[in-house]
């Protein structure tokens, strides 16, 4: 559809903005152009839409050189949705949209045909601006104006639509609506969309392919998954970035890391000083939230939590809806439920075992409650165990999972060694729970040696603490 070959252009011949670009866009593609400010995105778009001349190279549109198109002819193939538009005079919405038909009108008098009228009505409907058609353009809100301009561009019935940061003035739902529409049209009507994006995450979600520009050169031209790598984006945008997949889609999403948070990170060592034990509960209160993976009653979403509570439940405890009850209980006791991981145990929490382990600059704080508990199960006696593993360090997701595996294995081994069964498939309130949380500061523990050290600490720690806790609670073999 559109082929760019060895394109050089912009400003002067000696200092071109674009330095030798070669790429191709296929029909029906949604093609994103990314790059930091000043990388030449807009210049490229202006050249491809015929506004700016270029020094050398070639832009071929449907097999014909761009310069060989007459202006009107080009406007029937290419339409451009501008970032913003100001009118010197207040045309009505319909007059504005009708201008999109300019390239299709023939003859000296350029009369308005029924086809023109039909197309205008159709695109106004598609963009949802029909109800404004007699209102002046200037009276509309930013989002409505953008939709009118989109209608104007669509009235050109283009084969390629260029967008320059289309979501700039739109609120969240319109951003989605616009891009959904574009996506649908690329699929259904074979429209080719070439768009500049500032928002890398939107680009990742909607584009088939991304072209990443840096200082006028192509860094990479590939699928979003390949383009939006953490290291690449950090290097090109020169900023701290984290990269995670979208929760429901196999598309990468990027997260900036604010400088004030990155700087204020004084070392935090999680240990006994934060732990508080009463007869009602066991609480670990921290000044900063920890990245936490946990099972339990509340705070089970993968997220960041500051307070960790394990409540002692009475025999009369009604566990029909423990989650809702727990939230109510936490609020009434002055905890913020959205910042708190809550667990319920039937073991006397005062028999808790908490130990701090440190080796090779890596430290972990392990808290275990274990024991028979108050729940009377007539068929068999099983212990109830709640394991908390806190790590002072910055873990990758793999290490989190490895930690869970290691802690579970250690627990099972400890139980086996004191001759007990595990309790996992029991009712919700009294089942075993585990959490692993990390401050995400200090030592990086991502793979290799550091991961092995941590593994060893967690394995030993959980094993020892579980044994000790069992003993404390007065567990007697069988």
């Amino acid at each position, binding site marked *: 559809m559109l082929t760019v070959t060895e394109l050089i252009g912009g400003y002067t011949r000696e200092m071109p903005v674009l330095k030798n670009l070669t790429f191709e866009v296929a029909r029906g593609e949604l093609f994103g152009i990314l790059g930091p400010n000043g990388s030449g995105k807009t210049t490229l778009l*202006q050249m491809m*839409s*015929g*506004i700016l001349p270029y020094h050398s190279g070639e832009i071929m549109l449907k097999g014909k050189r761009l310069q060989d198109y*007459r*202006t*009107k002819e*080009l*406007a*029937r193939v*290419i*339409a*451009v949705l*501008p970032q913003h*538009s*100001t*009118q*010197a*005079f*207040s*045309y*009505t919405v319909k*007059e*504005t949209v009708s*201008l*999109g038909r*300019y*390239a299709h*009108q023939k003859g*000296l008098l*350029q009369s308005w045909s029924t086809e023109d009228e039909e197309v205008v009505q159709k695109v106004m409907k598609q963009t949802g601006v029909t109800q404004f058609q007699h209102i002046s353009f*200037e009276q509309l809100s930013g989002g409505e104006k953008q939709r009118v301009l989109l209608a*104007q*561009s669509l009235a*050109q019935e283009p084969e390629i639509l260029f967008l320059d940061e289309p979501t700039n003035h739109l609120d969240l739902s319109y951003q989605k609506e616009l891009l959904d529409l574009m996506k649908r049209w690329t699929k259904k009507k074979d429209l080719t969309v070439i768009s500049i994006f500032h928002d890398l995450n939107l680009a990742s979600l909607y584009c088939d392919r991304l072209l990443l520009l840096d200082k006028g050169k192509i860094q990479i031209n590939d699928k979003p998954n390949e383009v939006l790598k953490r290291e690449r984006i950090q290097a090109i945008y020169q900023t701290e970035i984290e990269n995670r997949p979208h929760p429901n889609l196999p598309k990468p999403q990027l997260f900036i890391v604010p400088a004030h948070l990155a700087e204020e990170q004084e070392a935090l060592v999680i240990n006994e000083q934060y732990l508080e034990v009463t007869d009602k509960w066991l609480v670990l209160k921290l000044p900063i939230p920890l990245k936490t993976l946990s099972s339990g009653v509340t705070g089970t979403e993968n997220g960041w939590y500051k307070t960790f509570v394990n409540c002692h439940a009475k025999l009369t405890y009604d566990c029909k809806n423990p989650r809702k009850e727990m939230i109510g209980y936490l609020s009434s006791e002055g905890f913020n439920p959205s910042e708190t991981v809550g667990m319920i145990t039937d073991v006397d929490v005062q028999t808790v075992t908490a130990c701090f382990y440190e080796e090779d600059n890596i430290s972990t704080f392990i808290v275990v409650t274990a024991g028979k508990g108050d729940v009377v199960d007539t068929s068999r006696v099983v212990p109830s165990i709640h394991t908390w593993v806190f790590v002072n360090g910055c873990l990758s997701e793999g290490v989190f999972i490895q930690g869970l595996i290691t802690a579970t294995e250690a627990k099972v081994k400890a139980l086996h060694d004191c001759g007990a069964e595990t309790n996992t498939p029991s009712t919700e309130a009294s089942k075993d729970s585990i959490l692993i949380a990390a401050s995400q500061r200090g030592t990086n523990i991502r793979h290799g040696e550091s991961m092995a050290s941590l593994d060893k600490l967690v394995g030993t720690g959980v094993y020892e603490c579980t044994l000790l806790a069992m003993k404390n609670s007065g567990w007697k073999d069988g």
Partner: protein
Amino acid sequence: MGDSKIDKILQNNRQLAYILAIAFLAVSMIVGISVGSVSVPVSELFRIIGKEAFHLPLSTEANVMFTNIVMKIRLPRVVLAGLVGASLAISGAAFQGLLRNPLADPYTLGVSSGASVGAVVTLFFGLSLPVIGLFTLPLLSVLFSFLTIFSVLLFAQKLDRSMKVETIILTGIIFSSFLGAFISLMIAMTGEELRQIIGWLLGSVSMRGWSYVGIILPFFIVGAVILMLNARELNALSFGEDRAQHLGVNVKQRKLLVLIAGSLLTGAAVAVSGTIGFVGLVIPHFTRRLVGPDHKHLLPLSMIIGGGFLILADLISRIIISPAELPIGVITALIGAPVFATILLKRRRIERR
């Protein structure tokens, strides 16, 4: 608020707007011809025009004095005023659209200064070229205005090859100031021609006769036709040049066409009547309020209303301190400035709402 209701009705009913505008022009013409130091009755007026212009076989003989007044003095004067007003108003509307600036007028690009230099030079040196004699002034004036607009465009192109409107406006201002200084210089050095020069600069359509109508008419027809053929392009251009190009307008070519056509109209108008201010600024504004900004209707309606307006202004200029005459530019400014201020105020209020 009654006003804006009328605006709405006219915007929705363009035919009515045209009828009203033509009626306004017709009434202005009739009043302009019949009123004056010697009143010509309207019935007599129709008879004279029917007989002299259309050679209708009318039975009654018209009054010879009335016939002379109408055919030799009043009618050419009214027609000339109408053509000048129409030229200024349509080129003002086109320039405002092209330059995307509602404050632009036909004089923005320095055309009028060029034409004025030509006229002032003629008066100052008492030039009278052989063969054309009395027409030395308008012809030199037209010539100078064309020289000016081409210099402005050439210079603007030197500055910026894409000829952005901002560049053109700036160049126009530079040339205007420079030529204005020339005019001031000649005024300062002049002796007895002072009154004549000032009078010409303030504008007048008196005692010109049919020959001046003949000078402006071809320019008027060519200019107005070119502008009206570019109405849709002007609509697109008021969204910005890049946007217009994306919509399929050959911006460079169309811009040049509009500039040249507008300058033809302005240069010719200034040449025959001097610099008459405010018509090219106020009439397009007023018309835009009546029918909206669509140039397809804005251009012809501005033309019609501008013609009628200048005929009335001329009428006032000759009867207000009769038997003496005021320069017509004084009248247009006296009417135009307050009207313009009112329009701006109203627009502001609407915007704030």
